[in-house]
Every structure is written in C-alpha cells, then in structure tokens.
C-alpha cells in the first residue's frame, strides 16, 4: 500500500495583532495516509484541523516540516492535480449558477466539449443538485452549497479527496447521503481525508483516525485499536417492578412510570437481574451492552491534557 499523503513534523505559527505576536498553531504534526482508506482527522474547534489542511493545499506555508502528496512536494502545483478539496463552510462565486460554477472549474481543469457537459451532469445528479442547477449560488442554502462544493471537489476525478467538516450544515438525510457518497468514493479506490469534530460521522465510516489537540497529534491509529470492544456496562430497562428490588444488583439511573433504567457493571449480575425479573413476572423492555465509543476516548483525552 502506497502512501498518499505524508506530513513530517509540520510547524506553523501565525503573527497576529498590530504589534505582531507569534502564536504557534501546529506543533510538529506528523501522520501519513495509506492508499484507499478513509482517514478521520478529529479535534475540537480551534485545534488546528483547518490549518493543517491549508498547509497541505499550499494555501498557507508551514514554518518548517515536509508535506508530500503522492510522493510529490506539496509546494508544486502538480502535486494537487489528483486532489479534490471541499472547504469548511464553503463560499463560492455567488453570481454564478450551479451549472456555470461547475463549468468554470471544468474549464480550469482543461475539460471541454461533451466530456465537460457529461461530467457536470453526472456530478449534479450525484449530489442531488439537478433541480437547482440553473439557480444563482447566492440563492443556495448552506447545505446546498455544501453539495455543489462536493461536486466541485470531485470534478477532476481525484485520487485523494480532502473534506473539511463536510457534514456541517446538512440535515439528517443530507448527512446520510454524504456518508454514502464518501463510502462509495472508497469503493472506487479513492483515498479520503475527512476532518470533523462530529465523532459519530468519523466512527461510522473511518478506517483510521488521528486526534489533534492544541496543535499536537495526541493519538492515531486504526479505529479498532483505539476503541476496545470490552463491554463497559449494560443498560437494562425493566417494567413492572419497583427500583428497590434491584438495589443490590446495579444502580438505578432513572425511573418513570413503572419503568426503571438500570446500569449493571458485572456480567453475572446481568443474569441475576434477568432471572429476578422473570421470577417476579416483570418485563424486560430493553438490554443494551455499552462498549467504549470514540467519544469516551476523545473526552478522556481532552480532559487529560
């Protein structure tokens, strides 16, 4: 498996204010992305996610460190030939219609004639923007801009797709559609770099993740390695019995009406709760074993820092 993107000890500082004061934003970021994977880049707001992406795309220049895309130095425009990019909260030329907007990028990529028309038609359909194709972008909602932005990012048939907070501003159906599109990109053999602070999105589709906090990568690896499969506790909802019945077996978290939510930590006690309920003619409404989630890891890491 070849390396698609490699960052080596990337440092970046901004000089801000009237009397410039140096602020270190990236403190030696290193990671690499393998071909064909979906890589999640995770961090709270202001951790340096977008700054990292801008460094990769040559929109800002790192103070030191090396970035290579498909083995090519990122400073050369050629390195970006096989890259597609969707920025966070995308803004585009609002005086263009959706179709003209895609045509503009197609022209820049050197497409013309029927190939250009076909491609524009295909991507308008893919992101579900056919009906708004001839509307000026200033009339688009945020979610619609996000969709047309994704079409723009995919127009050059990129081997590496960089998405900065792609799910922001989308409704639940839109998020699902976007997830499907991203998973499909992977099936087509493309590599996806996805930054987000929404853990659910990353957990559902990413192969590997890196967690960035205050400009440093504090953890990275396969999702399966980061999250243990171990059951932390089991949540059981029981109906028809008072909470006092279970006081020795587990803690009762809430009770409403005749339902009680129990949190049970040991496996034997789960069995005991079940037999007790059966014996007293109560009812088990639900039983869910809770494993560790990315959120648990994330929250504990942020707290530890």
């Amino acid at each position, binding site marked *: 498996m070849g390396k698609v993107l490699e960052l080596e000890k990337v440092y970046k500082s*901004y000089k801000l204010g009237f009397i410039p004061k140096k602020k270190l934003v990236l403190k030696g970021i290193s990671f690499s992305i393998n071909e064909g994977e979906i890589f999640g880049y995770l961090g709270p707001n202001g951790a340096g996610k977008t700054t990292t992406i*801008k460094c990769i*795309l*040559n*929109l*800002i*220049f790192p103070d030191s460190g090396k970035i290579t895309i498909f083995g090519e130095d990122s400073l050369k*425009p*050629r*390195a*970006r*030939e096989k*890259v597609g*990019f*969707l*920025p966070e*909260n*995308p*803004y*585009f*030329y609002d*005086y*263009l219609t959706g179709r003209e907007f895609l045509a*503009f*990028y197609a*022209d*820049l*990529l*050197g497409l013309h004639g029927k190939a250009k028309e076909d491609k524009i038609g295909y991507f308008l359909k893919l992101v579900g923007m056919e009906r708004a194709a001839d509307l000026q972008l200033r009339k688009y909602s945020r979610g619609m801009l996000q969709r047309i*932005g994704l079409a*723009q*990012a995919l127009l*050059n048939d990129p081997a590496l797709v*960089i998405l900065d907070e792609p799910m922001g501003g989308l409704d639940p159906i839109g998020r699902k559609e976007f997830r499907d599109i991203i998973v499909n990109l992977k099936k087509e053999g493309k590599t996806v770099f996805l930054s987000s602070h929404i853990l659910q999105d990353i957990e559902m589709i990413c192969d590997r993740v890196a967690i960035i906090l205050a400009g440093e990568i504090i953890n990275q690896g396969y999702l399966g390695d980061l999250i243990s499969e171990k059951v932390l506790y089991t949540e059981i909802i029981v109906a028809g019995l008072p909470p006092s019945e279970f006081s020795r077996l587990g803690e009762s978290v809430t009770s409403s009406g005749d339902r009680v939510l129990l949190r049970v930590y040991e496996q034997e006690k789960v069995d005991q709760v079940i037999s007790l309920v059966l014996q007293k003619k109560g009812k088990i409404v639900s039983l869910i074993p809770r494993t560790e989630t990315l959120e648990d890891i994330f929250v504990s890491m942020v707290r530890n820092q």
Partner: protein
Amino acid sequence: MKITTIALNTFKEAKRDRVLYLLFFFVAVCLIFSRFLALLTVGDRVKIIKDVGLASISLFGMLMAILMGTGLVYKEIDKKTIFTLLAKPIHRVEFLLGKYLGLVLTIFIMTVLMTAVFLLILFLHTFTIDWKILLAILYIFFELCLMTAVALLFSTFSSPILATLFSLAFYLIGHLSWSLEMLIKKVKAGAGRVVLQALYIVLPDLENFNFKTEVVHNLPIPTSLLGISFLYGVVYTAFLLLLAMLVFRRRDFI
C-alpha cells in the same frame, strides 16, 4: 488557458454586478456638462465637448480601475472563494494575471462603449469624425492599465479602503510629478538635484499618457513621444505586476 478562464470569469462577475450600467452615468455626465459649459464659456463649443468627453472617459475608467481593482484579490480572500481555486493545480501567478487581465478586459469594453457614445455625440455636432481623438483615448486606456496594476498591487496586501487611498495618492502624485521635473531644471547641479532626480524616476509620471490638450487643440504630437510613453507604460505596468506577484506568491490565506 487557465489565465483566460479566470479572466473571463472576472469579466462575468463585473457584468453580473451590473458595472456596465456606469455607461448611462457617463452619457448623462457628457451630455449635461458639455451643454452647460458651452453656455458658460465663450469660444468653440466642439472643443468643450471634446474636453469634457475625454476627461469623463478618463475619470470613469480611473474609478473603475481603482474601485474594482482594489477589491479584486481582497474579495476573493475575504469571501474564501480563493481556497477552492488555489487548491486546484493552479499557480498563484496564473490566478493573479487572470484577475488582472479580466479587469483590463472589463475596462477595455467599457472604454470602447464610452468612446462610441462620445463619437456619436461629437458626430451629431460636427457631422465629421475626428479620428485623432482615438489616439488620446488609446493613451488614456494605457494609463488605466497601469492604474489597474497599481490597485491590484495594493489589494494583495491591504484592505480595500487602504488600497483605495494608496491608489488615489498614486494617481495624484502621478499627475503632479511633472512639477518635480520643472523643479529639477531650476535647482543647481549638486546633491539636491540628484535626490530630486532619483525621486522623479521612482515616482510615476502619468502625464506621459495625457495627449488630451494636443488632440483637442490640434497640436502636433511627435511620434517619438508616443513611442516613449507607450514603452514607459509597458515597463511600469510590468514592474507593478511583478511586485504584486512577489507579494502574493508567499502570502498566507488564513
């Protein structure tokens, strides 16, 4: 290819922002002022129409060059439209040149339209067309190309308000620096004169492009002067664009 695409898009932006409507203002100014000034002055009415027309073309073109030029790059950064553009395999130099040529194209089309209206008004008064007028307008256009480069240079590193002030200052200095030339002739040879001469070389001299008086009053224009002025415009514009590229090449887009 990429430069053309960006240039045409810049022109489309100007068109959709209804910049070309400025033409109606131009027509109104031309008609009203030449009528009024003709009433107030004794002398050749046609000369006044020519004067007002050429001055208006120069003024409207200058307004477009400065007001649109200063926002040219700043707007792209401010609206973050530059992010997706530069993420494509495009050189920053290509982007900058595309933007510049797009605005020059807009100004060119506007100048052509204004000239057409101007010639029509003149024709209605004299029933002849004075082709020498086109020469004056051509050099106004060269000056506008230079001013666009000035505005573009300032817009690569400052906000539109500052860039507008800088560009206006540049324009004023450019039209007054001929007095420096006169001063040099009056100062005795020595250190003072060298300093003044150095200053004169660095500061722009936009009067080089001004052939309005000669054309209106039918004075002879030496060909060598035309050649030197043209060369001056090309070199100065190229120098300004080069500076703009140097600034832009290493800029961070935060």
